[in-house]
């Protein structure tokens, strides 16, 4: 998935000059302070918003379809959960499957299995309004993960979860990435950032920092992360070169290998 020169303005610029490559098989973290544009960027990546300039593409096709509806290959785990209160937990999950043409009976079975992945199969018949925030978040995760989408965009997926459930969720997100999905997680949580393969930091609508794994030639799996610093935001306005293949290492110098998982945001953040 490529994000090229994306700018988004509503009265004022909310995102500016965003260039990203989000690779299949990787978990990518988007971090940044509140209002930095994480959710807006996820929405543009998922095709919910039309960028003012630039574009986001998946598999070569723009994600924006002109209606604000996501492409079928894209699944969301929304920050506000986006659950339908008239439906039970299982029905909320199975609706997503039925919308993709899965047979209703099979959809119900898969939904129950998806809820079981997050240890809430016993809540399957409850109305979602009766669930706690954490339980609703896990229903939303089950719904996002069960459809086997090519792109999974999760906005603060662990904000309501305890440590144990956070680990469970990260494990499930990792499984999605290992399945070959593009997994992007917007988060404030350093532990989530740490669990991701790549990390892009946003501030005031601009990418200010990113860390990516090094992809060594001849290795399929992500290798060591590569850190890139962008102290000068203006540099981001330069035209992005053609995206590198997923298996190639980024060419932009300087490249610093960091054997700790990720580089932390700068101290002044």
């Amino acid at each position, binding site marked *: 998935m490529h994000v090229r020169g994306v700018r988004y303005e509503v009265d004022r610029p909310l995102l500016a000059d965003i260039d990203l490559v989000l690779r299949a098989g990787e978990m990518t973290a988007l971090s940044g302070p509140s209002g930095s544009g994480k*959710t*807006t960027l996820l*929405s543009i990546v998922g095709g*919910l*918003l039309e960028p003012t300039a630039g574009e986001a593409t998946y598999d070569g096709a723009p994600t924006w379809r002109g*209606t*604000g*509806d*996501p492409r*079928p290959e894209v*699944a*969301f785990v*929304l*920050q*506000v959960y*986006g*659950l*339908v*209160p*008239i*439906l039970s937990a299982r*029905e909320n999950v199975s*609706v*997503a499957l*039925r*919308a*993709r043409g899965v047979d*209703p*009976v099979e959809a*119900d079975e898969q939904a129950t299995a998806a809820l079981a992945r997050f240890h809430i199969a016993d809540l399957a018949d409850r*109305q979602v*309004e*009766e669930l706690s*925030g954490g339980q*609703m978040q896990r229903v939303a995760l089950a*719904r996002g993960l069960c*459809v086997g989408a090519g792109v999974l965009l999760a*906005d603060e997926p662990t904000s309501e979860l305890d440590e144990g459930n956070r680990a469970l969720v990260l494990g499930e997100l990792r499984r999605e990435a290992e399945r070959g999905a593009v997994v992007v997680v917007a988060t404030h949580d350093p532990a989530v950032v740490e669990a991701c393969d790549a990390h892009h930091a946003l501030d005031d609508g601009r990418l200010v920092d990113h860390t990516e794994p090094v992809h060594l030639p001849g290795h399929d799996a992500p290798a060591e992360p590569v850190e890139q610093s962008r102290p000068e935001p203006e540099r981001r306005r330069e035209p992005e070169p053609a995206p590198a293949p997923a298996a190639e290492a980024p060419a932009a110098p300087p490249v610093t290998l960091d054997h700790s998982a990720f580089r932390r945001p700068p101290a002044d953040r």
Partner: protein
Amino acid sequence: MTRDRARDLARTLRGAWSRRATLTPLLLLTTVVVAGVVAVLGFAEAAGTSGALAVPLLLLALVALPTTGRELAAARRGEVALARLRGLDGGALLVLMALEPLLVLALGGVLGTGLGLLVARVSAGAWLSDPAPPAPADALTGALLVVLVALVAVVVGMTAALREPLADQVAAVSRPRRTSLAAAFAQVLVVVGAAVAVYRSPVAGTGDEQAGPDLVVLAGPALVGLAVGAAALWLLRAVARLWVRRRGTRAGLGGFLAARRLTRASGAAGAVQVLVAAAVVAGVALTAALQVEQWTDRTARLQAGAPLRVDLETDAEPALELTRRLDPEGRWLMAAVLVPGEGSTVARRAFLDLSRHDAVLGDFHDDTAAAALASVVDELAPDDGSATGPVVGTEVSATVSGVSRRLTGRMRPVVVLSLRDLTGGTRQVRLRLEVGLDGGPATLSTPVRCGEGCEPVAVTLQRKPGDSELPWTLDSLVVGDQDLLERGWAPAEETRGDLPGGPVPVAGGLLAVSASTPLVAVPATAALSVPVLATRSAVWEGEPVVDSPGGADLAARVVGRVPGLPLVQADGLLADLPRVLLGSPPTVPVAEVMVLARADTPRRLLDEVLDETGGELRTLDQVRAQLSDDNGAAQARVYLLVAGSGLLVAFLVLLTAVSRERPAWLRDVAALRAVGLDVRRVRAAGRLETAGLVVVSVLAALLGTAAGVAWLLGDLALVRVPAHAVALRTSLDPLPVLLLALVVAVLVALVVGRGRRPSPERSRPAVLREEAAR
């Protein structure tokens, strides 16, 4: 201090303005309810009728307003939570919350009062012929009471929301509201109230009029509507739940989502209950208005007797003479007498010059209780040439003949005809004839004073002393152009041994048998009796008798029984006027003598009647208006006004509920679109949900209206049926019921359908993100 208060007031006004979307429906509801109540009370003052007709409207408002109060409190959840966190609680918190709705209610009260007084004035001017001068004291008191009751209802609705746990009030995600004990109790109360209203209805219908209308029965249609609406919604939810369980997994996604939404107690569904109740009240009111209008029209026709009526201060005979003189062809005018005897039903009697019935009345009574009159007029008023009634002529001729030849002796029959004239006086005409030896017929004529009509009362056949004892026959007895022998005659006395009781009626006439005594024949009883048409309530002890306009007892022959008759209405008798006037004493003083006339009677003719009699012309419209005023028939129209206000209230409640639900519904649509559902399928689900609500609300409205009409309408006392009037019979009329069902279907389809039509722009999945950003 004053500055502080001004600041508080300014803050309250600012708060109210910021919540104008929530407060506007409350303002409109208050305005409509107060306007309806004030209009009813104002009209009641002008018409002298009961103001209790506003009860159904108040009941609907009482159901709608607590919901509005709850929503008001819900709209201020954050503010309430903050106040509670700052230690404000109990009465102080309630006062803080109640201030805003109080301002709105006061404004609605003022607007509604003005509107209601205007409606009362216009309706009284339009529907009453003589409205009382406006005295709006009761109406203003009513408006004040409505505002206070509305405030209490809103505060009651708020209380439940205020008592919500603080943790829920500060939560970002709203929790489902379980049905509170009070709400469940209210539903039970509605069902019990409906049952009590139906049970009390027959009792109230026969109750004391002085005690006023029974409020529970008046509220009955609204209670029945609320109960039927609640039952229908419960059934809808049960069916939807069952459907989801049985077929939900195999059905299309649109149907599944629609059924799931219907299983939930959504605001729109709750508002449908109010709409059903309003439709039932409107259905009952519309049926009542139509049937009371019909009753008023038919009763006015019976009461008036004819399209035009001139009441006279005279006796019956001059009236009869007047009509025959001014209208000799009998095309326009008809004399009539009503004797409103109060002693018994049979003492109440009407007499019409029925020979003119077809020309003057025609089909005037065709759709009234006296419709059968037209078919028996011939029996009541035989033609002049028929065998009953008075005869008119100046000469009488008798023809006699022997039964055989005779050889010797003389045969000198004497025929004596006894007559009674119009004044009641009797006279006899004697004809002396002689039959030859061959027994051939002999005829003799002699003058008679019957130019104005006489009633034959007896025929005596006798023979002179020394004459032959052979029998002879009276072959004809003609007065004017009528042979009296065509009438039925019978011997005056019974035959005892060899003593004959009178002449023997034979095929050719009357046979004078061999007897030396005079043989007297009298008209047969059937021919003597006056044919009358009686109402079903008329009963006699013994043989039927009808009193003439002068009070003379006349043997009566009942030719039929009908539910109602002109002039006497539901109680009394009707007979032919000329027939009963013969020999009748002067008309009794209580009798109402009148001239009835066709609607298109030439003005010149009417002027002549008025000039000669000094009477007063009354049209059918005047009689109808008087009847309507005297018996409060306009109440049915006022009830219709109440029903219209109720429908408006229900429409506002439904519109408010759907509008208030719409943002949350759009969020749900956005969430469904975010997981891959396209707008088309969501639109289909919305259409199915709307169709479900339309079907249920229409069925409930039809059922409730049928129940309301069958069980309650007849006892709502919308009109005071006066003594002797034909009773108001209510029945289910398909036209108003179907009309109301159509109105309900259109309202639900428009309001809910519009509310469930997804706006592609406002239901974009991105709105969820924007909401989160807020």
